[in-house]
Each structure stands twice: as structure tokens, then as C-alpha cells.
């Protein structure tokens, strides 16, 4: 159940149109700056796939110059990367060494 927020920088003259289209998208809440063409977007989606899909659709939208991630709360159990298996670091370890050190048993 991710909740994320973004800073949205629309193209010149496109702020109102971008705001209206974002407002109409499910799971999107928009706040508009009073004095600048800057929008804040908070998204509330059922899972990461939906968040990624929503983000892609926003990025593809006409009139957006930049979409910058500011915050995200994503279920860590589902999304934390398995860093060691992806990097191969875990397999690089020190095979053959034991706590007693050289010459003291273990599979040297």
C-alpha cells in the first residue's frame, strides 16, 4: 500500500491543465502553489506495481517538465531489494576459513 509524494514542475502555461488531469486520476491528491507553477502530488496506490504504473502514466503526460520523488512509504517486506543475491557479494565470501584461523581445522 505505497504512499508517495512528488514535486511536479509543469511546462509554462500548463499548470492548470496538469492539475486538472492529475486530480482526475484515482489515488492522486494535488496541492497547488499560490505563487509559482509548482504542484505537489501525493499518491495512494494498492501496491508497488500500481505505483510504478501510475508514475509512468504521469511521466508520459503532456505538459510535465519534471516529476521529482520526495517521499515514499512502501511495504518493506515486499519491496526491499535482495542486495546480496543481486550483487553476488554473498558468494564472494571467504570459503575455507574458520574462526580458529589458519591451520586450526575447518575446511581450509
Amino acid at each position, binding site marked *: 500500500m505505497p504512499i508517495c509524494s512528488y514535486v511536479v514542475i509543469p511546462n509554462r502555461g500548463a499548470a492548470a491543465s496538469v492539475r486538472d488531469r492529475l486530480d482526475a486520476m484515482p489515488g492522486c491528491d494535488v496541492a497547488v502553489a*499560490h505563487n509559482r507553477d509548482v504542484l505537489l502530488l501525493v499518491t495512494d496506490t494498492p501496491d508497488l506495481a500500481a505505483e510504478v504504473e501510475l508514475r509512468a502514466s504521469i511521466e508520459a503526460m503532456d505538459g510535465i517538465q519534471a516529476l521529482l520523488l520526495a517521499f515514499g512509504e512502501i511495504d518493506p517486506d515486499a519491496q526491499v*531489494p535482495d*542486495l546480496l543475491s543481486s550483487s553476488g557479494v554473498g558468494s564472494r*565470501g571467504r570459503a575455507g*576459513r574458520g574462526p580458529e*584461523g589458519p591451520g586450526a581445522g575447518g*575446511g581450509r
Partner: protein
Amino acid sequence: MSVVPRRDFLKRTALAAAAASAASLVPDVVFGEDLDGVGLDVAWKKTPCRFCGVGCGLLVGIENGRAVAVRGDPDSTVNRGLACVKGYHSVQALYGRDRITRAQVRRDGALVEVPISEALDLVARRLRETVDAHGRDSVAVYGSGQWTIPDGYVASKLFKGAIGTNNVEANARLCMASAVTGFQTTFGLDEPMGCYEDIDHADVFVLWGNNMAEMHPVLFSRMLERRRQQPHVQIVDLATRTTRTSHASDRSLLFAPQADLAIANAICHEIVRNDWVDHDFVEHHVAFRKGRTDIGYGLADDFGFTEEVEESEWEEFVEFLDEYTPERASEISGLPAADIRWLASLYGDPSRRVMSLWCMGVNQHTRGTWMNNLIYNIHLLAGKISTPGNSPFSLTGQPSACGTVREVGTLTHGLPGGRVTDPAARQRAAEIWGVPVDNIPAEPTHHTMSMFRALDRGDIRFMWIQVTNPMTTLPDLRRYRAGAEKPDRFLVVSDVYPTATTAVADVVLPAAMWIEREGMYGNSERRTQHFDRLVDPPGEAMSDTWQLVEVARRLGYGDLFPQDEEGHIEEIWNEYTRFHDSPEHRMAPLSELRARPGVMWPFVDGRETKWRYNTETDPAADGAHGAYDFYGHADHRAWIWLRPYEAPPEWPDDEYPFWLSTGRVLEHWHSGSLTRRIPTLHQAVRSAYVELHPRDAEALGVRDRDRVRLVTRRGSLELPARIDYRGRPARGQVFVPFFDESMPVNELTLDAYCPISAQPDYKKCAVRVERVRR
């Protein structure tokens, strides 16, 4: 306070974070909603941020024993309620699913879990056996600018005072050593004379190779705010790569790698030629020195360097500058001579207050000490120093590089407040520590690169690594990883998650992280920041401080350390601050630290010192020396150094035609072992990449996201190319972030270092770029 459901609270926090991010991009932006993120029924507790050296004050929301929310501390003068994306997500780093919660020892090649008492027994036994078999200099401890002050203090006391070896180093050698030697050679004392309040007074900001928008975003937003309020303010980005900082600056000036030496000297040349010198200041407060030249790069194991300081004088300095005309500097740097003259005019204009800021671009440099000296030269010539807004400001990268490594002295040559080579400093340490003075060796042993070379050779057999991941961050990594993996080496690693370094460990100790224990950090502006234990550590995780105490006890040194875990941080703080009990460096008592978001030293008569060496603001400065007293040197003067341009050790050539530079990105901290476990930050930048200039990419037939192979004399690495993604390198240069241990760019980097500071240069080596055809 009204109570809101947790999900609504998260949305409110998300909105507040977005508003803070927007404010860092567009400082005057105004939103109508209440965006402060409060409302949940949680207990808000203060702490400094766990990440960079800015030292933002945070308020962490605690609910049912768990850290659930973060907001910027409005009472912190550092960040005034702001936080960056890493700060907002910082507490999530406590709760990654692969958190190390139990000790592990290697048996038959695999790490297996054991009770922590058993692991500590083994650590103590192997340490003792190694000393007995190979001597006390065969054991070492390697820590971090992320050590708390008590961690570093206890490590130094155990290894230097009790065991009797100066094999104590920290990863701050890799990021701050040139800043230290720069300060010490120019002023005789370490750390900045100014403070962040300088930002509120400066008219010009010159950023020397410093992508502050990503690396120090909260300070950068303060700078943008200063410019919004005072439109005459200018921000100049002087760098080798176009970044987010460049886009937000008034001028972006690109120069060739290593050419900052020539540019700085040319600025001095122009200040002298146009008689923009503050002659009164120079006459009364400056002396001139020169040292050795053609000083090498530290590439050989037997490399040694000893500085030979000679007195110089104004006339010799002016003659030295003769060759550094803007035209000559332009030839070296590629920066137009007119731009160099313009930069000099900013520094030379007596009506403008100028702040220079730098970090890794200047420090990770084979002439890093010289570059620090040269920036000070500019400010000293113009008399723009130690007054509000006139400030050469060396930023730090880590939360306690200053507090722990520089102030405690956790480097081979250091002691708290002194050097091992100084008999008086050793005597004082022996008295405070309660050890015989002969225990503390009078000579430094190994700086970091030398220490890992000694591990490779076998001169060091036992190393205890805490809070850092050298098997990702050392340059020329393959050599040092192979050294660490040799069968008769014994590595102990204290950390919170599995890393490339725990993967080569014999013992892994589960560490309590940040707010899971009490501690202090010291930030870039001499500000010490205390944090309480706010949540319990998981499993058998134990603070680095207490791990060291437990091993000390097993070695028979228990009487030198606190006996009871309850209150041990206060006991350590009270002992440590005896080292700094002078007007030059007095630290605040723990009661003050507990009450405030942070306190700057020197803290004298209940007051912080904002500008050192200024006799109106620094209680240690003696008015008998005039308006300024640079009391770090016996002559009470700051020293201008004659430091020439010298080429780097490796240049692009036909075989390796590009420059390779490395660094960080906003979302990730160092080797990524924390931030890559924060889902949002990981999703934002999932893997490393190489930035190419669009025309170089076109010439190579490479499109955005194509895979390319980088090849240096030390190794090769495949990774995706990015074109105009985060930054744009100049033509003939590439940039790779180092946070991704699955794409370890430090297998390519060169382990050349500044001979004075022994800090490696991660910003310059020669590389070939090959398109990978599938």
C-alpha cells in the same frame, strides 16, 4: 493535539516532504495547506540526522517503541525545520528485513550465528593471539565518520592507550583528510573558522567542485533562500560536471580535472595585479610559507613523504604568481580567461562578502592539501575571513567526520586534541586515560591506504572494522579485497546489514544503529549534537562503543572503561571533554547537549563561538594581536602557501581516452547499505550508471540506457549509460556513482593520494568506454 489515522498521517508527512523538496528547488514557493506533518499521537524526540555532515536536526516520532515518522526540527539553527529526502526516510533504515540481529562467526567457510558473548570472546582471543605472535602493530581498528564520538573515543583509548598501537584509522581519511591538513598547514588548527550563519550574510557563493544541490541539499536551499531575499546575491558553480547545482546557479563554469590548482593561483594573480589585496590584513595577520614540490602520488607501498617547510615572503609570493596569468590558467583549465578575471573580481571587490564552499572535489585530489591552502590564500589576500559572510568553508561528508575523527583524533597520528608525536599530548592522554605514557607509541604507523596495503602484505593480521564498508569504498578495490581474503587474516566487522565487507569477515557483530543507542555526532560547523536511545536495538545488537568495552574487558583492560552500561555515555563524555578544556576548544557539558539541538565549540562561559580568530567573537583570540588572532601558529598568523599546479598521475591517452570521476547521488548514502534498504530511495535510483556527454555518446553509438563497458588499467565494469539524466559530464569525461555494490566502480579507480593528507583521489583516472553489443 488532534489524533489522525496513521494512513492520513503518512499522507500528510508525504505532502510535507514534497513541500520541503519544492522549497529547495523554488525557495519562494508558497502553499496554502498546513504542511507541517504533525497530528499523529506520537512522542517526538530530537536527534541529528544520521546521514551527511550538514547535521540537520530531526524530530523522530516514536509510537509503541518504533520510530514511525520524521520531520525537520524547527528549533535547529542548521535546517530550521527542513529535511532532505534521505532525512525524511532515515528511520526506515532501521527496519530492513535483512538487519543483522545476531553475531556470526565463519565456520567451514560460512558465517553461522552464535551468541554475541561467544563472538566477543573469539574477537578478544584472536586479538590477543595476534599481538602475542606478531606484535602490537599487527592489529588495527578501522572506523568511520559515522562512528559516534564515544565509539571513536573508546576505540582510540583501547588501541592507542591500552594495546599500544597507532593502527587506528577511519574512513574520514578518504573524505576529509585534505581538509584537515589544509586547515593545519594554513591555520595550525583544524576545522572552520565560520559557521552556517555565514550563508545569511554572504553576497557571493563560489562552489568549488561541490554539487551541493544533491550532497548538501538543505544548506543549498538556505543559499537559494538568501538569494531570493537579496537578488544581488550570486551563486557560482565552478566544477568539472554540469549538475543540479549548476542549473540553480547564476553561473556554471566548467574546468578540466586538476586545473583548479591553476585557477586558484590565477585568482590570486589577479587580486595582486589589480591591487585588490587587503594590505593591512596581510601585513598584520599573514605569513608566507613554501614546501616541497613534485611530491608524487603515493602509488608504491614504500612511498614516503616528509614536508620541508621554508619561510617565504610577499615578494617571492608575487613572483611565484607571475606565471599564473588568467591566460595560462585558461590553457590548463579550458575556462576562459575572462571568467577567471571575473571570479577574481568577485573575491577582490571589498564591498562583497564571499563564501567559498567545497567538499570532495577539492579533498579527493592528489593535491588536496594544496587546493585547500589555495582557497585560503584567496580569502587571506582579500582579508575575507572570520567575519559574517566572509568564509572559506570546508564542508564535511559524514555526520561525525569532524566530531569523531578530527576532534577525537581517530587517525594514526592523532590523539584527542593532539598528536602522538607531541610528548605533551601523549602525557596528557596517559594521565586522562590512566595508562603508562610509554603505552602510547610516539610515531604514527599506517594511514588508511597504507593500512590496507599492510593487511595485504601481512604486516597487519587482525583488523576490526566498524560502521563502514571498505570493500566497496576503497580505490583499486580488487587488490584490497584480495588482501582481506587472504587465509591468515582475521577480520571483525561491526555493522547493521550484510555488505561487501561483512562478506569477507571472520566475525560479524550486530551493531545498534543511531537512535538505538545514546551518542553524539559533530557536524561541519563545529556543532556537537546529542541523541538519546529512542528505540531498542533488535536481537542482540549492541552499540559499537559497548562492543569495544566488552572486548577491552576480556583483554584485561576493563578498569580503563565504564563498568556499567547505564550512564556509560555520560561517563565517556565527561572524560573525553577533559582533553578539550581550553578556550580554543571547550565543549558543552552533556546537560546543554541534551537540552539543545546542538552546540558549537568553543563553548565558553555559556556561549557558542560563531567566528573563530576574530578577537570580537572568539574568547580564545587575544586582542593584543589586533582584530584577528590566528593562534594556531606560534607567530599568531595564518600562512599563505606557495603551491603550484602539478599534473595528476594518470591522464587520458589513446588507450584510455576519458576521465573517470565518481561520487554520490542525492538519494543514496555512501555504499548504499542503508539507503538501498529504504524502498522509496531504492526505487528512485535502483542501480549505478555511467553518465556520458551526449556528443561522446553519439560518437560511440551509445543511446540512453544502452550498456557500456568501462575499462581502466585496474579492471572493467559493465553498466547502463545515461545521457542527460542526473548530470552531464564535460566532453571526454564520464561519471559513475559508487552506491551500488553490485557495480563496484572502485574496482576501476586509482589508489593515488595526496602525499600530505594521504587522501585518495576518486575523481580522476583514465578510462576507456566501450559499447557492449548484444
